[in-house]
């Protein structure tokens, strides 16, 4: 028995696929931004927060980094209703992604903070700059330059990981692929097309990110 590939039904559903890809991008972007907020708070706690809080943040990071994302999603999606909180699959997916990426981004931000030499700040103050000016002109850019590559690759990783949220039937690209698959029985074709879509998205994002890097962190400094 030879198999004939049928890409017709897959291509006919291009609108759904694009909508799924768009939701994947939205989920990843929102999760990254919210995760950064979590990360900045946690990085501050880890470097200069009170002891008990520091311990809580340590535990959070260790637990997230040493358990699979899929288990984290199940814990949230099945666990919260048991605790009386109703969440849609998309909301549960977003929450799980924020919690997950927040832990990874904390380490990146912390490294960025620690990469700034104390002497730089002291020199700025000695020159008579105000603390805010020191932050804006001396600290911010090198710190951003340090964390930027790690954060952008973390974003692409997050986008690829978000495929796992299809396990709770969200509306992301992989979930759309599952739906098309169950309606048209063209499993291999659907997943091949969707895999290429993910590849295109990650290549496009990394091209955009590296262009931004070249422009924004070009030396000598232009203000």
């Amino acid at each position: 028995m030879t198999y004939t590939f049928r890409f017709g039904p897959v291509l006919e559903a291009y609108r759904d696929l694009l909508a799924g890809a768009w939701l994947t991008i939205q989920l990843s972007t929102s999760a990254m931004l919210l995760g950064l907020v979590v990360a900045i708070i946690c990085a501050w706690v880890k470097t200069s927060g009170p002891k008990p809080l520091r311990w809580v943040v340590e535990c959070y990071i260790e637990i997230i980094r040493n358990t699979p994302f899929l288990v984290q999603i199940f814990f949230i999606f099945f666990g919260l209703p048991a605790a009386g909180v109703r969440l849609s699959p998309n909301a549960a997916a977003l929450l799980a992604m924020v919690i997950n990426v927040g832990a990874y981004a904390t380490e990146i931000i912390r490294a960025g903070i620690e990469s700034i030499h104390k002497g730089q700040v002291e020199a700025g103050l000695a020159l008579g700059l105000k603390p805010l000016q020191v932050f804006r002109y001396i600290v911010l850019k090198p710190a951003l330059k340090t964390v930027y590559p790690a954060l952008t690759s973390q974003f692409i990783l997050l986008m690829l990981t978000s495929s796992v949220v299809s396990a709770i039937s969200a509306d992301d690209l992989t979930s759309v692929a599952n739906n098309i698959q169950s309606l048209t029985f063209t499993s291999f074709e659907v997943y091949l097309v969707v895999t290429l879509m993910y590849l295109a998205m990650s290549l496009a994002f990394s091209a955009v990110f590296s262009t931004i890097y070249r422009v924004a962190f070009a030396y000598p400094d232009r203000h």
Partner: protein
Amino acid sequence: MLRQFGTNEFLFIFTAARWTVLLSLIAFVGGAVGGLIVALSRVSDVKPVSLAAGGFIQVFQGTPLLMQLFLVFFGATTLGLDINPWIAAAVALTLNASAFLGEIWRGCIQAVPKGQWEAAGALGLHYPATMRYIILPQAFKIALPPTVGFLVQLIKATSLAAIIGFTEVTRAGQIINNATFRPFLVFGIVAAIYFILCWPLSHLSMRLERRFAAATTR
């Protein structure tokens, strides 16, 4: 129709962990062999070979692992092979690990100082001998911490096999949760099992990295 969560339920989850461990080991061994080939191809002087290895890495690092699993699983069915989730997961994870380990080890091979290559050439050693006696032993040392770190990623990655129906520890948790509906307890236990497997390795990787950093700073 809810079951109580008792000893049997716990044992069902706990014993399923052996499949998680086994799948991780198979993918790691397979990925190590594949990764060595990918790494050596990547640093090869023959352009097409290094480009092919680069493409392989790009595809596996630029697409979701879940899609890789699906493509192996459904692709085999398309070819008329009757494949079970166990084989599909092992093959997909092996390919994925080959790409990631290949990329990690390429960096380690290139981290060996250039003078070592030149010295080997000056001694009249050919490529295979240079690799085997001079470069790889030194690269191995550099590679140890990130390789142990990758093993943690791999153990976590095996959880995705649950989605194609292979009963490892995550899928066992799903099955028990459907029967007992005690999500916090069930997935708490599942998470704890992963944590017990991964955490020591994470720390070992960190310790090795520190020791290595201490040994190389002058």
